[in-house]
């Protein structure tokens, strides 16, 4: 599986309240949530994001509330992958569970800039920066997480284990 798209770049500690503010949580509908994704730190995100685009953050991406609406909103926006130096743990779990690909890579998160064009190979964990002509390597996934990825989320994994 491969992904290709342009980068939306953010800083440290992007919290789930800014990814999807609580005032929109009276629904779990992905189509509704995508309209307000990132709006408190990037009000034009929903307007500008295109299918395949990639979010890059720095440290502790997705901290705060456990709302699964956050990775759901990002995924529903068409984002193909989130890259960060580190992820907050609940967001990390939730992303795999809902089938939103995420990659931890310090080098990538530091070097990639806004609007860079990236190509990601999820098999090899290789992130190719087409704008800068650089290649970064993502952290390999633990074996257990790989099983969830292969099942495209926890739902199918549980289904086959229930």
């Amino acid at each position, binding site marked *: 599986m491969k992904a290709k798209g342009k980068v939306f770049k953010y800083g440290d500690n992007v919290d789930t309240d800014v990814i999807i503010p609580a005032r929109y949580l*009276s629904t*779990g509908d992905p189509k509704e949530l995508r309209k307000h994704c990132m709006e408190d730190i990037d009000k034009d995100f929903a307007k500008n994001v295109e299918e395949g685009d990639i979010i890059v953050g720095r440290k502790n991406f997705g*901290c705060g509330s456990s*709302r699964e609406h956050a990775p759901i909103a990002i995924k529903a926006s068409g984002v193909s992958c989130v890259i960060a130096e580190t992820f907050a743990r609940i967001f990390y779990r*939730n992303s795999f569970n809902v089938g939103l690909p995420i990659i931890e890579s310090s080098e990538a998160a530091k070097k990639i800039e806004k609007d860079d064009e990236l190509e990601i190979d999820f098999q090899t964990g290789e992130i190719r920066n087409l704008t800068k002509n650089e290649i970064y390597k993502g952290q390999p996934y633990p074996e257990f997480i790989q099983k969830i990825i292969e099942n495209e989320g926890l739902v199918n994994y549980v289904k086959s284990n229930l």
Partner: protein
Amino acid sequence: MGMTMTQKILAEHANLKEVVPDQFIEADLDMVLGNDITAPVAIKEFFKMGGKDVFHKEKVALVPDHFTPNKDIKSAEQCKYMREFAYDKDIKNYFEIGEMGIEHALLPEKGLVVAGDVVIGADSHTCTYGALGAFSTGVGSTDMAAGMARGKCWFKVPSAIKFELTGKPNKFVSGKDIILHIIGKIGVDGARYKSMEFMGDGIANLSMDDRFTIANMAIEAGAKNGIFIVDDRTRAYIQNHSTREFKEYTPDADAIYDEEYTIDLATIRPTLSFPYSPDNTRTIDEVEDIEIDQIVIGSCTNGRIDDLRAAAEILKGNKIDRKVRAIIFPATQKIYLQAIEEGLIKIFIEAGAIVSTPTCGPCLGGHMGILAEGERAVATTNRNFVGRMGHAKSEVYLASPAIAAASAITGKITNPEDII
């Protein structure tokens, strides 16, 4: 190899003799929790998984507390969906608003969590029950769904940071000041993926309500869980609230901690977190004149009886500044009633505050106290991120009930020592 408290609880619930950090395990669950925002998503996932009945009718708790009493039609629909599921699946621990409370104050009060339990909740502040010596952690809706279906959850075994607490906190230094001090020290990702384990002789000087507040905000340091060693006060609390058997865990003498901090509670000053991060802390002595528009006292962090008593002590006989909106919400119906019986509610209303039914509303910018552009609040809640309590250009200053109450009287952030 020696294990931490958390590792021992997880090992036992995974039927393993020993676990080591970073090991993936599957553990049996004693309680699975959800609320009116996260449970509706979880219930849909539960059905997608092929779920029929929940794994145990007494080990699932559903609490409509976030946007309740229903703030709008969409919220009402979400609550209705959860309510119908609860009745259809015969879930014993569903709490309608007349007997409800904010989930993390309610579950300990109802005796639903005891020492040694493993609890997951689709709410990040599920880590609160670490105050009782339980392992409890926040997860998302899909994990909650899997937990309801199977009674199991996968975990990566965490390493840990040890906090050795010594000494006695001064007056007006509460659990809130202690945890804000710690978050300021280690940062919002200082304990990312790890356990925060609290021990030491200073713990005897902390009430259970102080400990709930401290464990509650472990997530604000990025922790997987916060957990206290069990002492006489914990045992008394559990025995007064629950008939369940409980099990105490202590860390092995050779348990390995990534880091160890010794904190003398007597040296901590009343502490606040400035916008827009819980680790942006200042002591009250470092605060210049900051005018405020609102104070909020309550939430899963600080809506317990100790918190209300601390606020009442300061508000008694005083008037709230006419430019300040003071909103106080007891965390459960039981706490509310106790506050009435103790005369606290009378003090609040005579001082010029409003008192609300239990709800998470204002804490997450849901309802009951949203901020306009440019407005500032001192809140005893747990997060002050951009837009958390309303407009993206509003500001939340996190603090103890004593600081919030003192600030309500003067209209600016105020040291409670200056009021009494």
